[in-house]
């Protein structure tokens, strides 16, 4: 079963589906969380993440990638954990700015492969290429415009559309 089917199944109370989802995604979630958190906290966050998945599977809407949905939940659980400990530790998890917009939050390097694949299409298509140049490689607008052979205004409007598509792909889950 693919991830969407697993989530639909566990929304119906299938704990086996949760187990499969855990086996599939816990390792990479752990690896990403470990970049910002100590091992004990990673384990706590993972536990709360998958319990949140179990409780909220019914709210998942299969428009985006399940992995991105999981990451948003994990990130939120990590933020909750750190918020309890104070603002200084909150900064550990911030990667380049506030987390208010899930699309902006997901537009970090760690989210790129996962979210962009579903929202922007396969590598090579214009939106995906623009995303790669601007956000993965961090090139300025002028350079991206030159490389793609389009005006800077076009680059900016395509970037805006790409962020909108990514936001829709994440399903607006908080």
């Amino acid at each position, binding site marked *: 079963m693919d991830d969407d089917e697993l989530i639909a199944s566990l929304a119906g109370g299938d*704990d086996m589906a*949760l*187990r499969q989802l*855990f*086996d599939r995604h*816990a*390792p*990479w979630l*752990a*690896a990403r969380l*470990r970049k910002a958190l100590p*091992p004990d906290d*990673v*384990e706590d966050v*993972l*536990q709360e993440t*998958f*319990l949140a998945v*179990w409780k909220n599977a019914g709210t998942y809407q299969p428009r985006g990638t399940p992995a991105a949905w999981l990451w948003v939940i994990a990130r939120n659980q990590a933020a909750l954990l750190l918020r309890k400990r104070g603002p200084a530790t909150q900064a550990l998890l911030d990667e380049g700015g506030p987390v208010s917009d899930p699309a902006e939050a997901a537009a970090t390097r760690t989210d790129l492969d996962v979210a962009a694949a579903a929202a922007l299409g396969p590598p090579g298509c214009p939106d995906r290429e623009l995303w790669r140049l601007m956000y993965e490689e961090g090139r300025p607008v002028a350079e991206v415009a030159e490389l793609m052979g389009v005006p800077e205004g076009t680059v900016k409007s395509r970037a805006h559309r790409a962020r909108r598509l990514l936001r829709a792909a994440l399903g607006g889950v908080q």
Partner: protein
Amino acid sequence: MNDPSLNEPIGGGSRSAANDDIDLDRVWVNVAAEVWRRHPGRLERTAARLLRSPGLARALFTTPSLLLPWLIASAVVLAVGALTQVGAGQPVVWLIAPAVAAVGIAYSYGPGLDPAWELSCSMPVSDRLVLLTRGVAVFAMNAVLGLIASAATLGTHASAGTAQLTFAWLLPMTAACAFALAVAVAVRSAMAGAGAGVGAWLTLVLAHSATDGAGGGLSAPALTSAITDANLYLPYLAVAACCAVIVLFATRPRRGLL
């Protein structure tokens, strides 16, 4: 008490993690603990407090789910109840009826039919206490069914017999078993509880016969009326209330327990 090696799964293989310092198997066990967790209802939680044992409360509420023992125990209880009506003029019937019913319940939920009986005998919670608890469950649930049947058959030919069975046998026996269980829980001894239950039954019967104006003494009519007399329902309720007071006092919440 908690063995760390219990967290390591066997056979199924460990979950690999990019970081060796994160135990994903332990994380999964914690997730599974919440997902598989059974949430007892309010009645069971109340019973756990009254009985001072979540295990006894679970035994009480799972009594009907052991289907074959439940059917046989209920059949014995109802058959004995019917016999007491047939033998209304025989004092010995009233004296041995509870014993016959108890043997039937003990066989059904004991070494006769309980598939996990030997295991139950190795538990800290006494197997006799579990049997006493199951006895209360058998009588109480059949009493409830009897009350429903009595209400349903009101005004019909079967009304008198159903009411007799319910009010003269099932309800008094429920009270006696509840008293026995209350004493057993308070002193943590099933034998003491059973003795108290038997004593209470005999005391009720003999006390009524001693105050019986018509014949006095232990007579068949006195014994029969001791069981069917509506005036005794108040003493039954008083016994039940005493049980409740004893148990509530003995099981009052203490810091750190239950």
